[in-house]
């Protein structure tokens, strides 16, 4: 039983897990040589990831992670050989329906030195079913590799969504995260990046939209261990109706992370008097020669912006929609898949116009 105070999860029990029978790897063309993409239960080569120190992993909590490790029903293992670069994103798509209402995905991505790839994970639900997703993704980005992970979460308002993401980044490696949180009744997601070595880098951009009775706990951690490591967190969100969100941003400079830089910024638009918005940005520092910054701001859409747009003939709702979309646009534009961008755009538009 799990109790999670801030998002009102009381004595939560994991539901019964069914097999996920649908195909989730979307491949339009053959993968080049040097890449191994398998379903998780086919192969996991643990020897490739010898620096993994599992005791550091907290994610959403031991319960959620060990549940995935024991009961996973889907997921990928991706292995990129040295110097291999793929330009086209790999798309992993989970669509939960009546026959497949649960996704417990375990994903492992290992990028050898100087490799590069973009992986998109898309979680959605079809019908008005009560779906359940609990995932765990771990990434090992070795020297000078670049991995971009895009996670789009659009499950319906009856469902629960939990997702833990961990990355280990070696010297001059880079992990980019883009998180789009649009759905679920209760959603908890955690992204933790360990910047292990010199000049490792991680950027995280996320957007969220809270409507109805949605409750979200979004937690982003950048743990600087290597010198000259760089991190950046940028979060934008909008809350309406009775929705609630908790934002946790942690910049943690461990001893030895000298000359590192970290920045985090959160901006939330509050659209209704009934919303709840908690922000817990933490800045932890054991090393003096670093630069850390965080900023959070919250407020309403400015009257003058609204007035301007409405004077141009837009209704209030349209004007608000335009402003919110404007705030989300720079992050959505980073998704390198036209079709998915359109899906996200129309989903946001539908939500804002129905409000």
């Amino acid at each position, binding site marked *: 039983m799990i109790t999670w105070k801030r998002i009102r999860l009381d004595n939560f029990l994991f539901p019964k897990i069914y097999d996920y029978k649908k195909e989730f790897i979307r491949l339009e063309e053959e993968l080049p040589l040097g890449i191994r993409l398998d379903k998780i239960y086919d192969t996991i080569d643990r020897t490739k990831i010898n620096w993994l120190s599992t005791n550091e992993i907290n994610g959403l909590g031991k319960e959620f992670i060990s549940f995935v490790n024991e009961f996973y029903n889907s997921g990928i293992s991706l292995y990129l050989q040295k110097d291999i670069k793929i330009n086209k994103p790999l798309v992993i798509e989970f669509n939960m329906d009546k026959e497949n209402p649960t996704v417990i995905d375990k994903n492992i991505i290992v990028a050898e030195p100087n490799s590069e790839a973009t992986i998109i994970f898309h979680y959605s639900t079809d019908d008005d079913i009560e779906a359940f997703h609990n995932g765990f993704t771990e990434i090992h980005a070795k020297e000078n590799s670049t991995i971009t992970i895009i996670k789009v979460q659009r499950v319906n308002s009856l469902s629960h969504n939990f997702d833990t993401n961990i990355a280990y980044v070696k010297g001059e490696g880079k992990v980019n995260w883009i998180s789009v949180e649009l759905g679920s009744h209760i959603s908890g997601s955690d992204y933790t990046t360990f910047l292990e070595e010199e000049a490792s880098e991680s950027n995280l951009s996320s957007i969220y939209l809270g409507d109805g009775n949605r409750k979200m706990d979004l937690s982003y951690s950048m743990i600087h261990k290597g010198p000259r490591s760089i991190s950046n967190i940028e979060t934008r969100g909008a809350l309406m109706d009775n929705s609630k969100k908790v934002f946790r941003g942690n910049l943690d400079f461990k001893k030895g992370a*000298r000359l590192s830089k970290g920045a985090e910024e959160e901006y939330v638009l509050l659209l209704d008097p009934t919303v709840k918005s908690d922000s817990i940005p933490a800045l932890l520092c054991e090393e003096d020669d*670093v630069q850390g910054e965080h900023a959070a701001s919250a407020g309403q859409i400015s009257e003058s912006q609204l007035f301007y747009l409405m004077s141009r003939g837009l209704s209030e709702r349209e004007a608000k929609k335009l402003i919110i979309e404007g705030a989300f646009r720079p992050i959505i534009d980073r998704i390198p898949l036209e079709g998915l961008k359109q899906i996200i755009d129309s989903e946001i538009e539908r939500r804002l116009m129905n409000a």
Partner: protein
Amino acid sequence: MMRDMKILNQDFLIYRGEGMERKKTYIEDVDRGIYDVKNELSYKYKADKGLTPDIVREISREKNEPNWMTDFRLKSLEIYNSKPIPTWGPDLSELNIEEIITYIRPDTEMKHSWDDVPEDIKNTFELLGLPQAERESLAGVGAQYDSEVVYHNIRKELVDQGVVYMDMETALIEYEDIVREYFMTLVPPSDHKFAALHGAVWSGGSFVYVPEGVDVDIPLQSYFRLNAPGAGQFEHTLIIVEKGSRLHFIEGCSAPKYKVNNLHAGCVELFVKENASLRYSTIENWSKNMFNLNTKRAVVDKNGTIEWVSGSFGSKVSMLYPMSILRGEGARSEFTGITFASKGQHLDTGTKVVHAAPYTTSTVNSKSISKDGGYAFYRGLLKVAPKAYGCKSTVSCESLMLDNESISDTLPIIELNNDNIDIGHEAKIGRISDEAIFYLMSRGISEEEAKAMIVRGFVEPITKELPLEYAVELNNLINIELEGTIG
């Protein structure tokens, strides 16, 4: 390019350091001069170690308290025994409360003329610069020595205007109704374990009552001091500023160091009524074995203002989060704080602001410095209630680290429960930039002085809020603290 130069520069510094005897020493080796003077102990009365209902009754009887207060103390003791020691903050396992003597009364009666104060006590205060400050146009000095106020004076014109400034014990007898109405209503004993302990064994402290429409144009001051080894200090400060009045209250602390762990669990309750304004300034400089678990809280009515100016130095562990409850429309709070954590210190400080009414505003400006393995933790809460629309708040936290043995953390929690608000928060962490030092040195200033200048500039927003003699003292403290770091 720039970065390469920086590294070269650092290498050079290390090289230069090898041949020379470095001045780097730790604070405990530095003679803190007047801050470490202690007197021979002399008691009239000393309670047994540990805490039982009998001891609490004895304390109450010794003070000739009314029955309701005795009952209040016993009730608090019950709550105290039922509550666990908080574990979410600094490590308190070294704190053995049973060992701490809860009540020591100095061998002196209340004096109203400076000449009557015993010589040794006088000497200590003199070293702390108190009598001069008192003689030079300040209204009243209520200096707490051990557990009771030994010296107390207030200017005649304030008395004529109806301003009451006295020790809590006397207030309990002379103004029993007022004390009974307000005492520990803002910080109830059920709040946390140390509030309950305070309720059970409180002793000494100040009582200030400013009637409607009185502008107290000179700051009231009190200086607290701990002297007996193993003695806890549980002073209670109760300030009521009635409608349209204005007051500046200054509380300063300094204590010599002792080997026995010391506990300070004071309580400050401030009531700011409609259109009233109160500024509460503190410099806390406890000795480095002190556990400073102080609770301070203010409640502000319509269009009232509370201003906190807070300097936290000294102590082994501090948990101090002055709280402002803005319950009247248009109420305002302002917090300006500086925390300086040095070797062996864990200072967990911050502020809490609750916007409980519409159109309330708050500003938080916190600075912290850590060095020689010191641990400075800013922990803050900003909460906006569902009906508190039109609120505005700005929170800014800055941390300066003077070396890489120290730790500095920032954890500001923001909870918003409506949409019609304007909230901004920012935090920064870092060290003194080499460029700034280089610039100052190129102007002929030594490296030590350049660093000290930058640190003084960093804390300037705090010092400028303090009256001159306190600003001077704060700068002295910073110089004493910095001694040995730079070199």
